[in-house]
């Protein structure tokens, strides 16, 4: 059963081939068997899962099922789940039992999903390798010496190892797409504002966006149908009708104009990864797409700009963790200042501290114009590059990451080299555009991800292009050995 996609599992449940309780037991057993090796879950919730599975079976029997009713699901541990620990990968929230559900969590609950548990992640979603988690590194199922990527590394590894058919993720600078690429799965970051941020622990509020992590684009469409939508509790949620993302998966790609930004294929790209991407572009040509070379001239500024904007917003957002209302509190504080400083100093790991300090520096008196204002201006230039490109083309294609998964420990001594792992993903966050990563081959037995970037609110077109590619290739059907 674990080899089936969400679409196949949904059909099986509704046809009575198996029950949700059986399905849920099968996945819980797989987690039990394999997660000691992978460490992709922070919390597993077997009792809740079986309870939800029985309810789902009753709902299916009553013919009231949605396409997700009875489907096992894992949430990135950044989404608040009522009554379940929501740690955000941090010691700061190790004892935090959320008093409410994130909107995404309640929407998926009403669709009838079964919660298997909460997945591991880089602390507060800050990292590209899952090595900053308080709960330890996640292993990549394709090679347990390799990182799974990050920050949604637990979700990516769990889906790739088929410990869950689907997981949620969040993407601030590539945190859905880069781990999806490194683990050989499909990961979609929707347009900024498409999926509610309410109850999704904030890192950088003008960049954060939740989305689905699945094995196929068809599954991502099914899950996005339940995740997307206006939420009045999120002040930047967009009030725009949600289309049926499954409706256009089979549209022809004849005449689709795909732009290849020359800056995404320069010397920073591993040449074998480049070859795999070239081969996938040829598939698109065979499918009838027209390939056009384009330029996004400010691409090289995306990482520097991001490392002002994201830390600045992070330093503001993370000021709420003060040891007073929830989360970690130090022992016997001498005074209020000591309480704040020691609770935060003990509760946050090194990468989070770095980003809080970087953001505080960029926002501090005398530096604001030189850093934060400057970064906001360059953000406009980066966004304008895309606006101009989309006047001539329908989609942008390129690599998701500059290399395949690197080894555990390889980059965690040098933050800047780690930051450059997100060189091709960050610009879509700065501009707020939707983007997807899909499996596109292997280099030294580690997966390669192809990234497609779409214009605002064109998730359906992205998913259609990804689905069509998955009809003529089988990279998404490969399974890591031993899992």
């Amino acid at each position, binding site marked *: 059963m674990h080899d089936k996609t969400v679409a196949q599992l949904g059909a099986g449940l509704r046809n009575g081939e198996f029950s949700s309780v059986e399905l849920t037991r099968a996945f819980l057993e797989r987690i039990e068997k394999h997660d000691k090796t992978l460490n992709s879950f922070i919390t597993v919730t077997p009792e809740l899962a079986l309870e939800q599975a029985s309810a789902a079976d009753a709902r299916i029997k009553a013919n009231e099922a949605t396409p997700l009713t009875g489907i096992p699901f894992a949430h990135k541990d950044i989404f608040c789940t009522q009554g379940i620990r929501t740690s955000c990968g941090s010691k700061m929230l190790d*004892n935090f*039992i959320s*008093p409410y559900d994130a909107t995404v969590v309640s929407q998926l609950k009403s669709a009838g999903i079964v919660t298997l548990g909460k997945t591991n992640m880089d602390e507060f979603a800050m990292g590209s390798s899952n090595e900053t988690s308080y709960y330890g590194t996640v292993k990549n199922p394709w090679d347990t010496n390799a990182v799974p990527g990050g920050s949604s590394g637990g979700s990516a590894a769990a889906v790739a190892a088929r410990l869950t058919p689907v997981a949620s993720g969040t993407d601030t600078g590539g945190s859905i797409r880069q781990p999806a690429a490194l683990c050989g799965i499909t990961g979609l970051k929707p*347009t*900024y*504002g498409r999926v509610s941020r309410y109850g999704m622990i904030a890192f950088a509020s*003008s*960049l954060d966006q939740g989305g689905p992590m699945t094995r196929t684009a068809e599954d991502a469409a099914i899950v996005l149908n339940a995740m997307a939508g206006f939420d*009045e509790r999120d*002040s*930047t949620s*967009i*009030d725009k009708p949600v289309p049926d993302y499954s409706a256009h998966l089979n549209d022809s790609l004849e005449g689709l104009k795909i732009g290849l930004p020359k800056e995404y294929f320069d010397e920073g790209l591993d040449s074998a990864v480049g070859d795999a991407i070239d081969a996938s572009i040829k598939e698109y040509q065979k499918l009838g797409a027209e390939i056009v070379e384009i330029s996004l001239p400010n691409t090289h*500024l995306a990482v*520097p700009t991001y*490392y*002002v904007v994201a830390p600045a917003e992070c*330093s503001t957002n993370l*000021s709420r963790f*003060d*040891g*007073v*209302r*929830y989360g970690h*509190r130090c022992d016997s*504080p001498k005074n*209020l200042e000591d309480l*704040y*400083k020691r609770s*935060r*100093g*003990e509760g*946050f790991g*090194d990468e989070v*501290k*770095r980003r*809080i*300090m*970087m953001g*505080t*520096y*960029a926002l*501090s008196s005398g530096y604001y114009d030189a*850093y934060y204002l*400057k*970064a*906001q*201006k*360059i*953000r*406009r*230039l980066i*966004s304008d590059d895309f606006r101009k490109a989309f006047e001539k083309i329908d989609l942008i294609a390129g690599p998701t990451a500059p290399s395949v998964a690197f080894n555990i420990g390889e980059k965690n001594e040098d*933050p*800047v080299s780690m*930051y450059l792992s997100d060189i091709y993903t960050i610009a879509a*966050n*700065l*501009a*707020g555009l939707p983007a997807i990563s899909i499996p596109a081959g292997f280099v030294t037995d580690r997966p390669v991800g192809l990234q497609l970037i779409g214009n605002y609110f064109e998730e359906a077109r992205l998913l259609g292009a990804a689905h069509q590619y998955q009809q003529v290739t089988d990279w998404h059907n490969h399974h890591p050995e031993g899992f």
Partner: protein
Amino acid sequence: MSLQQSDIEKVAHLARLGIDPADMPEHIKNLSSILDLVDQMNAVDTESVMPMAHPVDTAQRLRPDEVTETDQREQFQAIAPQVEAGLYLVPKVME
């Protein structure tokens, strides 16, 4: 750009972040190299560019000024480190 220990101490204080003195050299090195990365922005002339605060240019939504949330104090305080009689406790602020 090279940062001094005093820069890190100032920023850590502004952020109310306790830093272990043993970690200081590492923070100085790493934050300096992040600033070098960020300084690549200086090569661009942005004199006439409008800053972009938000990816989608929309006006902030307003709602009627009505009470929408119910009182959940007990539930919220159940996860607080230290409370008494409905109040959050902190060390004495005034003598």
